[in-house]
């Protein structure tokens, strides 16, 4: 805390006494890594300069007047109160200046909205509070078998600093995910953006791409990245409690590396599928299920139902002591609820494997004081799908 104070004071002093800003602190919009981002940046800078010059002239005249036309210096006021010529001039000049800004703005806008002739397409789906990426195609080849969720990877422990706790926060704090979106450089990538629940907004500043994800509608946008790198953004539209915790990370790689990534991803998916099938065939011991279940619970469930299972009623019901998590007769309902969702509860069927769902349900029925002794097996989940 005191270190922050010190830093802030030093920063203020630096800002006041020297024109040159620190290299570390970003004051301005990023020029970005796409042609569109450069254009948005140029337009922004043009507007900054134009406003700065108008401001200097208007405020300059005002301060001159404040100094020279104060009563002690200028005791006899003039009495003019209109001048048609002056009034016409200062109506026409702003119109011309605005025209000068509008022309490049229109050109840039037309270019940015041109989603035709894309080399590849990715479906981006927001939901509370994560992104899902599904590849559609690339250079005419079908990629629709590749799709995954992308979740914040900063642990909750790192940002939940209640009760005077302090934690080390890295440079990528709140801007890191478990699986970034991977796209090739130099290709026109079209994004189809939508949502499963509320409105989100997918924003990558380095691309100057910000598009609302509206449930029930699909919006189009695109980018063509010039430089390989990792680009970080956020969900920009208020989407509920964890709006601040659903970052966007895009990794742009060369087209060759992208091909390798596609192949590797497919191999990994096949292996995961085989492992998941093996998991279903096996009968799991209670402690194995509980261990895995806790892991899955903390990653996917604790944001709403809380680590303690107390929830946040009435929006997010408690699991501790709840009927569905303690009544033996309701085990099928419990499985169904996790698989298919209900109301604000999202469906996890597509996101988690049979084993993960079995584990988390077992965990919920045996943690937070719920001592049912029920062990749900992956095959029960598979049967319920």
């Amino acid at each position, binding site marked *: 805390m005191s270190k922050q104070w010190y830093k802030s004071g030093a920063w203020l002093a630096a800002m006041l006494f020297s024109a040159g800003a620190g290299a570390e602190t*970003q004051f301005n919009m990023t020029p970005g890594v796409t042609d569109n981002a450069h254009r948005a940046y140029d337009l922004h800078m043009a507007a900054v300069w134009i406003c700065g010059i108008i401001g200097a002239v208007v405020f300059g005249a005002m301060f001159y007047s404040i100094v020279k036309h104060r009563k002690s210096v200028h005791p006899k006021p003039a009495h003019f109160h209109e001048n048609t010529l002056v009034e016409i001039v*200062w109506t026409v000049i702003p119109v011309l200046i605005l025209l000068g800004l509008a022309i490049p703005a*229109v050109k840039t806008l037309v270019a940015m909205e041109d989603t035709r002739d894309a080399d590849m397409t990715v479906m981006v789906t927001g939901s509370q509070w994560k992104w899902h990426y599904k590849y559609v195609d690339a250079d005419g080849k079908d990629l629709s078998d590749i799709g995954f969720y992308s979740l914040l990877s900063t642990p909750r422990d790192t*940002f939940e600093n209640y009760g005077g706790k302090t934690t080390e926060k890295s440079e990528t704090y709140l801007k890191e995910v478990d699986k970034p979106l991977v796209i090739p450089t130099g290709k026109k990538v079209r994004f189809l953006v939508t949502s499963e629940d509320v409105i989100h907004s997918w924003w990558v500043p380095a691309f100057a791409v910000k598009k609302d994800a509206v449930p029930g509608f699909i919006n*189009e946008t695109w980018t063509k990245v010039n430089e390989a790198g990792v680009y970080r953004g956020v969900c920009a539209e208020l989407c509920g409690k*964890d709006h601040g915790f659903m970052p966007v990370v895009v990794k742009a790689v060369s087209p060759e590396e992208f091909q390798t990534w596609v192949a590797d991803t497919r191999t990994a998916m096949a292996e995961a599928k085989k492992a998941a099938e093996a998991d279903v065939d096996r009968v799991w011991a209670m402690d194995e299920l509980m261990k895995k279940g806790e892991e899955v619970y903390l990653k996917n469930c604790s944001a709403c139902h809380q680590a303690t299972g107390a929830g946040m009623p009435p929006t997010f019901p408690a699991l501790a002591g709840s009927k569905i998590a303690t009544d033996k007769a309701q085990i099928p309902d419990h499985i169904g609820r996790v698989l298919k969702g209900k109301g604000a509860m999202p469906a996890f069927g597509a996101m988690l494997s049979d084993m993960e769902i079995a584990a988390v349900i077992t965990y919920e029925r045996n943690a937070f004081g719920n001592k049912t002794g029920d062990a749900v097996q992956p095959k029960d989940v598979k049967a319920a799908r």
Partner: protein
Amino acid sequence: MSAVIHEHDHHHDDHHGPAKGLTRWLYTTNHKDIGSLYLWFAFTMFLIGGLFALVIRAELFIPGLQLVKPEFFNQMTTLHGLVMVFGAVMPAFTGLANWLIPMMIGAPDMALPRMNNWSFWILPVAFGMLLSSLFMDGGAPNFGWTFYAPLSTKFGPPSTDYFIFGVHLMGISSIMGAINVIVTVMNMRAPGMTYMKMPLFVWTWLITAFLLIMVMPVLAGAVTMMLTDRHFGTSFFDAAGGGDPVMFQHVFWFFGHPEVYIMILPSFGIASAIIPTFARKPLFGYASMVYATASIAGLSFIVWAHHMFTTGMPLAGELFFMICTMLIAVPTGVKVFNWVATMWQGSMTFEAPMLFAIAFVILFTIGGFSGIMLALAPADFQYHDTYFVVAHFHYVLFPGAIFGTIAAVYYWLPKWCGRMYSEKLAKIHFWWSIIAVNLTFFPMHFSGLAGMQRRVPDYAIQFADFNMLSSIGAFGLGIGQLFFFYILWKTIWGGKAPKATAQVWEGAEGLEWTLPSPAPYHSFTEPPVVK
């Protein structure tokens, strides 16, 4: 302008004086009493809304979640916005209208005094309902003051229904207040006061009143559709039933954009009254000020979707709303130039109202500059929903609407209570506020440009310095306004403040300055003649 005042004798004091005790305030139909009620209500809401802002700023002081849970943080941003917009700024302006319009146009009172009483007393009920939601299961509304569907419909907390009825009540109150202003201005002007002789404060309020009547029903429609979506099976804003969540935003901003002018036009009128007084020179370009205000009001109806450039509008829509929005800069520029031209070659002194008015012109213009930038759709893709937007609208609202109101209070307070405030304390209040307001809101431009999105309880460490500065500024700003209360208390009830003359300010012109200070309970019982 000149006026003839008939001092009237005191044969029937019982009839003309205020009643005693609490019932005076409950049953009052007097424009000054109601004006005071509105102003004190607004000040109370300003402090409550400020408290919510300080919860936000305290949480954002350093990275990490230290004080409040994210869901409570969202309740604070929502209530801060709603309370400031509907509870502080709008009632403050209605309070000023009540106090000033009859005195400025030479009328005894407002035209519809009983409705006036109603339109005020609805407000405490509306805000009682809204604020009680903080203590309900599931907490207060948490979807931002813009309450976008479906976050506010399908996903809203149970208290959303209280919010909906609260908004209905606020709307009814605003519409009644607006009708009262229009009827008063149209029917009760003193003989000889033509429309083009009305003080600009009256003009800007007349135009504001028309805006209110046109857009408050639209807001009522939006919340009613929410209510039926939530409880009666309709799907106005739900694609699953054939509706459209983006249509909510169109309806909301069709109200919302004129609403932002509702919150600034009366300040234009205030600056246009104060600057000539302290420059000792008539207002430059009176007629163009009137026309500029009317054009701003007209344009405000065809720019709403500039709040929605990222929603997936067609290109033609984006172009139309971008160009129309840029056009607003022209009449707004005319106003700023007129104020500077009024100061030019004047003989200025810098008492507190003038200081706040000058700060208003400068800082509002800075907010206007960021407004032009935000109008540029391609750049807006980068600014939208970031702290750059937060900086922009706080620059037009705090130094715009609030500094305008503070300037008005210092300027007319001697007329209202018959006593002079302490110029020394008011100057301290001014310098303290001007430093704090810039310290709070200027760094937000930088954090927004660097990529910090709005309405988040926590942020990446690269934004830490800007946020700490904003938080320090915000606490300073809050303390400064408590000091304002002290100044007001000392002037009105302290008993030691010097008595004010009728003229109060050397250069002041207008009918209100022909009345004694404090102004009599019924302003002009006999109409003055305006030449």
